[in-house]
């Protein structure tokens, strides 16, 4: 799997390169600003670009903008944005851009190497990876008297993992449940929230997020 990496802090860039190479990714370019990212993506057409949201020269959200610009030119490249902080509005922008192949994670998650590598693979394969913090922000927006209150605590856990972009198998593993049990919870949640059963994990994520963002 071929990766382009954009991170301006040398320490983190080298660390990430090492971590990805150790896990059998081919890092074809590691750059430190937005323009270089766009050039590298156009040149290498990688499976995924892992991008720090804050890059020179202004250290605002150049990484996000550059990643969206790069994908405009090379639509097959998936984007995983990593950041020291998350803002649910940015997640909405990333997801609105196109179906699938997007991720938005706190840099903290990189420490859980196994989960982080899973997320990179999932996004590169056209899936979604949303940080639990973003999902928590979206849950916080919902009023107390809404339909979310009708979910059992277990169903809320499942819903949060669905919103993060995990598959049923991934949810089952995270909650130590059988896949069958997870499927039952999912059906029950979709019923209680009036959401249609949609094919594909990514469309399911979009439906759940659209619901949470209402």
């Amino acid at each position, binding site marked *: 799997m071929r990766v382009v990496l954009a991170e301006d802090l040398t320490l983190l860039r080298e660390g990430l390169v090492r971590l990805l190479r150790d896990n059998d990714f081919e890092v074809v370019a590691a750059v430190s600003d937005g323009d270089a990212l766009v050039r590298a993506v156009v040149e290498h057409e990688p499976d995924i670009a892992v991008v720090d949201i*804050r890059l020179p020269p202004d250290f*605002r*959200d150049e990484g996000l903008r550059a990643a969206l610009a790069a994908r405009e030119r090379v639509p097959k490249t998936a984007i995983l944005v990593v950041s*020291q*902080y998350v*803002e*649910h*509005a940015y997640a909405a922008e990333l997801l609105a851009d196109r179906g699938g192949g997007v991720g938005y994670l*706190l*840099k*903290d998650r990189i*420490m*859980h190497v196994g989960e982080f590598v899973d997320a990179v693979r999932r996004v590169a394969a056209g899936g979604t990876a949303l940080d639990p913090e973003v999902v928590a*922000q979206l849950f*916080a*927006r919902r*009023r107390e008297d809404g339909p979310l209150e009708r979910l059992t605590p277990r169903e809320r856990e499942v819903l949060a993992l669905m919103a993060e972009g995990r598959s049923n198998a991934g949810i089952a593993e995270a909650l130590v449940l059988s896949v069958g049990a997870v499927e039952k919870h999912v059906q029950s949640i979709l019923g209680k929230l009036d959401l249609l059963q949609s094919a594909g994990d990514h469309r399911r994520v979009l439906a759940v997020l659209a619901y949470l963002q209402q």
Partner: protein
Amino acid sequence: MASPRWRDARKRATLSRQRMATPIDSAPEGFLSEKPPSGPRSTSQERGLAVHAWATALNAAALILIWAASGAGDFWPIWAILPTAFALAIHAWVRLLHRRPEIWQRPHVNFALAVEAGVWLSLLLFNIGIWAAAGGGSFWPVWPAIAFGLGIVIHASVIFFTDPTTQQMSERIDVLTSTRAGAVDAQEEKLRRIERDLHDGAQARLVALGMSLGMAEQKLDDAEPGKARELLSEARAGAEQALRELRDLARGIHPPVLADRGLEAAVRSLADLSPMQVSVAMDLGARPAAAVESAAYFVSAEGLANAAKHACAEHVQIRATRRGTILHLEIIDDGIGGADADGRGLRGLRSRVEALDGSFRVLSPAGGPTSLTVELPCG
């Protein structure tokens, strides 16, 4: 900290700023004048003038009727009409000065001087009226006109030579000195708090993390991989906690979304995460300066936090508009009120706003609602 002197300076600051920004609504704060009443009462005052004018006219008409009915001899009603007209003229002039402050808001003039000039002219006309009604003769009204006129000239020269600009500048210096001291205090307090948070939080966690890693190294040397593994996950948990604390700290200093997307996006983000129902309406046009955005953001954040924590509010409205070169921000909740305007949080915000030459008002009667109103120059 709000000593009387401080409060005074603050009041002066608000007055002089108002004058700079909206000359129509304000009065001078010069030493020879006092602030004439203005604002919502002006319509009832307008009505008062109309009643006065009608009463004067009816009185005159009645007297003339009586005079005509009683044989229309010597025109005696003039002796009643002249003084009532004199009173009406002064009343109308003072009203006019209220409505059109531009008449007297100019260099070396103030409200009192303008009133005096009107009284002088009315008195002159009144005296000429009496002189004419009494059959003319030697033109004596010139003497009171000269005497009163001399008084006005003295008044005007006092205003001219004491130079109100110097006066205003010294007031301005007072205001700047005190707001700067407030801002420096607030800044100092904030830096101390950040230092404490870093010392007790992230730094301590990094020390613990280093110790866990060192011990894990030992366990590996001792060939106890199970123990080493335990220590390593402890270290990772410590690193995550340190990151979380640093993130919260950074957000408290300057939230990233504010720098990235500006005031409206940042305040909406706050509103989204609030347990209350928060409506945000902003119409700002171009982005104001970073310091202004940041002050407005922290006022909104504090207002929301107070509304949730102390006021038990359910709904909050945050409105921001730009009026000319002034950013006007208002945060209104439906809580129980009783906020302490001199509490630490609001005091710090006030200093922050005043350091930018802004004004900060808290209205929070017991029983609510609470409103925070902030005006920040953003030319």
